[in-house]
């Protein structure tokens, strides 16, 4: 049924969806409290990334660059620019953690950041995230893995009450919070790594911090390995869970490809009931399940008439498509930024790795788009409806507080899609 096409044959990206690994790494480090992400590369990479994230979150973004130049690129193996950067950062602030990661430039030169890191005597985690490999999702995932590998202490103690949640990069801050709260409602103490829910959730702080504010603390990361359970969400996060298990082989691991829609949330509940040996979930969970059921029915008529284009990061895409599918939405085209084993699982007529030019060429095959801000021009040109999701969303405020996950978020997501689809049909009819 599903054909997976990759854009390998196309020698370029036109109107790209794909984002770089260093951007994913930046976001991951912003989910650690008191961190200064330090991007090792030319100054522009950090500048673009900073502006990009600032506009998406409407929040100041802490980020620095080693500002490699054509001169230092030749003379320096990274030692100078990285050490100098940290010196200069520490003149102004004292981060709890420096998050050091590369762009394509130093990777091409072959800088040994691991070696440099070993010379530095302040808390630092390094990770290689060349921007000519992978994408946003892998940059985030690699960073999460590095955080565990380099910070978490080995142990053989287990605290059965403690759960580590590993969210994929496309989970917006409120979604991380909602999943944490959901698990916590079963009696667990939950730590998320990275945790954007407490850093980039769009709250007014006491003052503008030069470092990330909120997020999981370095100390908490160090102590993660006594958790009884690690829960990874999204294919990209599986490796991080495995690394955590290497720190303590007693940790059990639950993996969920996504937490979108009824079936996926049911399976989370089922696992949590097994873990806790509760007979019932908390009342609020039961209530929201009933509301999602009703939302599915209320929206199914509109959804069943609607053909969707969905674009996004693989882990995000698979969840969005599942949610739509459950209420009868027909995903005719799903476009992923990069390849992933998950793509085979997507419930869509066509799945491809591609860009918005591909989407444009298939414009007769869908009515409504679920995708990022860049889809707006596409929607406008071809008279499609749009539900804005994913990175970036520069046109709207409040992105970090949009929850599509679990029973509750699933209900709201379906309402939004069904309503936009109906309004769009009305509009087409009227014009």
């Amino acid at each position, binding site marked *: 049924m599903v054909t997976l096409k990759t854009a390998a044959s*196309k*020698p*370029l*990206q*036109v*109107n*790209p969806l*794909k*984002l*770089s690994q*260093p*951007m994913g790494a930046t976001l991951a480090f912003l989910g650690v409290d008191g961190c200064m992400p*330090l991007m090792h*590369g*030319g*100054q*522009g*990479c*950090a*500048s*673009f*990334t*900073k*502006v*990009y994230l*600032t*506009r998406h979150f409407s929040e*100041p973004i802490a980020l*620095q*660059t*080693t*500002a*490699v*130049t*054509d001169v230092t*690129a030749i003379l320096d193996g990274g030692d*100078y620019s*990285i050490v*100098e*950067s*940290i*010196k*200069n*950062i520490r*003149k102004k602030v004292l981060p709890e953690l420096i998050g050091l990661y590369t*762009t*394509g*430039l130093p990777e*091409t*030169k072959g800088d040994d950041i691991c070696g440099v890191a070993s010379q530095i005597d302040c808390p630092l985690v390094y990770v290689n995230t*060349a*921007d*000519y*490999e992978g*994408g946003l999702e892998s940059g985030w995932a690699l960073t999460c893995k590095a955080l565990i590998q380099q910070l978490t202490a080995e142990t053989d103690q287990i605290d059965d009450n403690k759960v580590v949640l590993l969210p994929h990069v496309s989970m917006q801050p409120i979604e991380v919070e909602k999943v944490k709260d959901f698990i916590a409602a079963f009696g667990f103490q939950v730590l998320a790594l990275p945790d954007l829910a407490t850093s980039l959730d769009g709250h*007014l702080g006491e003052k*503008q911090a030069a470092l990330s504010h909120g997020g999981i603390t370095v100390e908490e990361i160090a102590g993660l390995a006594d958790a009884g359970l690690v829960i990874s969400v999204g294919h990209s996060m599986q490796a991080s869970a495995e690394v955590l298990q290497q720190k303590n082989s007693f940790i059990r691991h639950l993996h969920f490809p996504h937490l979108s829609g009824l079936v996926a949330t049911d399976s989370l509940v089922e696992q949590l009931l097994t873990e806790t040996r509760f007979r019932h979930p908390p009342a609020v969970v039961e209530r929201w399940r009933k509301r999602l059921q009703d939302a599915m029915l209320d929206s199914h008529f509109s959804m069943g008439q609607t053909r969707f284009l969905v674009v996004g990061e693989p882990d995000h895409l698979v969840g969005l498509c599942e949610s739509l599918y459950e209420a009868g939405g027909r995903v005719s085209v799903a476009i992923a930024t990069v390849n992933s084993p998950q793509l085979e699982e997507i419930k869509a007529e066509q799945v491809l790795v591609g860009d918005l030019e591909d989407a444009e060429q298939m414009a007769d095959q869908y009515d409504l788009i679920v995708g990022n801000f*860049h889809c707006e*021009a596409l929607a406008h040109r071809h008279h499609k409806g749009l539900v804005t999701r994913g990175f970036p969303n*520069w046109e709207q405020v409040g992105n970090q507080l949009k929850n599509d996950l679990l029973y509750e978020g699933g209900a709201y997501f379906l309402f939004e899609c069904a309503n936009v689809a109906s309004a769009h049909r009305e509009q087409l009819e009227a014009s």
Partner: protein
Amino acid sequence: MSSKPNVKELLIESSCEHNSKKRTPCNAPTPGATSGGCAFEGAQISLFPYADAVHLVHGSMTCLGSSWETRTTKTSWQGRDFTQMGFATDISVNDVIFSGEKKLTGAIAYIVELYAPEAVFVYSTCVTALIGDDIDQVCAQSAEKYGIPFVPVHAPGFVGSKNLGSRLGGEAVFRHLIGTKEPDKVTPFDINLIGEYNVTGDMWQYSHLLDELGIRVLSSLSGDGRVAAIRTAHRAKLNVIVCAKSLVSLTRKMEEKYQIPWISLSFYGKRDTSDGLRSIATALGDPDLIERTNQLIAREEEQLEQQLQPYRVLFAGKKAVLNTGGNKSWSIAAALQDLGLEVVGTSVRKATEDDRTKARKYLGENGVLMMNPGAEQAKLIDDTEAHLLLAGGRSLYTAIKKGIAFIDVNQEKKKSYGGYQGLLNLAEDVKNALENPVFSLVGRKTPWSH
């Protein structure tokens, strides 16, 4: 023959007043203490407004993936607006190891077939520059093959700042486009607009006035620009640099090669707009034109004054503190004064000496020129009982603590502040800020702060 520009030469550009007073080059960023974009971004800024040309970025995803469709530069080009599209070769590990030229060639063929642009700009980036991909050769071969201009742009991020990148963009245009075509006709009042990017339609706030005066914009670099027009730029009578010092090197070279004089001006605020129009007429040297320009200025200023009247009533006695960088430190100040606000202080932290002189001129003796605005502005607000702070987002907290109105001067604007009519947009935004209760409400104490 390589088309790579001499970066060093551009850096010590003699016409750049900014640099003439400084010893260190602009492009030495401090590791770990750098904000601001790179040379590639500068080239984007100066060249992307050509909407009839495809801008192909030869590099990995960071360069374009995070930056396309961020520009609010507008165009009247009736074809598809390529400025709002993103084209990138998205090189892979494989390309890094074995060269990305083949991919680049393929991308060009793809673009020409599907989009038939008037020209293609090819941008090198850090990685493709480092691995030595020869974009000059690819461009030369493509130009021959497809019969349209291909412009290699050598502004990989790591060569320096945005400012340098803009110069490199100008350099590419100078080497590959200007002088390659003759205009259909010439007039005595042909000018080029250099460094006007028509952001939010700024250029259209005054271009109709030029039209009315019979001054023709022969070409533009690059707001609402056309590739065919910039190729004829060498026949202009005057180069007009709009608020963009980075392109002085270009106009100097055009002066040397084509004997085109140049002037530099701004269309921000009433006084600057009037001065700008007058400067152009004066530089073109026609007495009748000068006379007509003065009449037009008088008419426009009178009309504007009438439209501003209701705002003046609202703004009477209102004081503003300005904390922003570069030429904005005095140009916004001047515009605010044009609206009838008193500007009690402005930041000159990153300003050149020239900017400081101008700021002093506009603010007068009692105006405070802040060298360390982060620390000074709160006290200045207290001392002067200012009503409005205009600054970057980080200063919002100061405004909230003081309970005064705030305007984010870095926030992306959708409406132009340029020319006479743009001043009304600024007035409206100032009014909205002054009347917005949000700043004092957000700053109110929580019920549990005892």
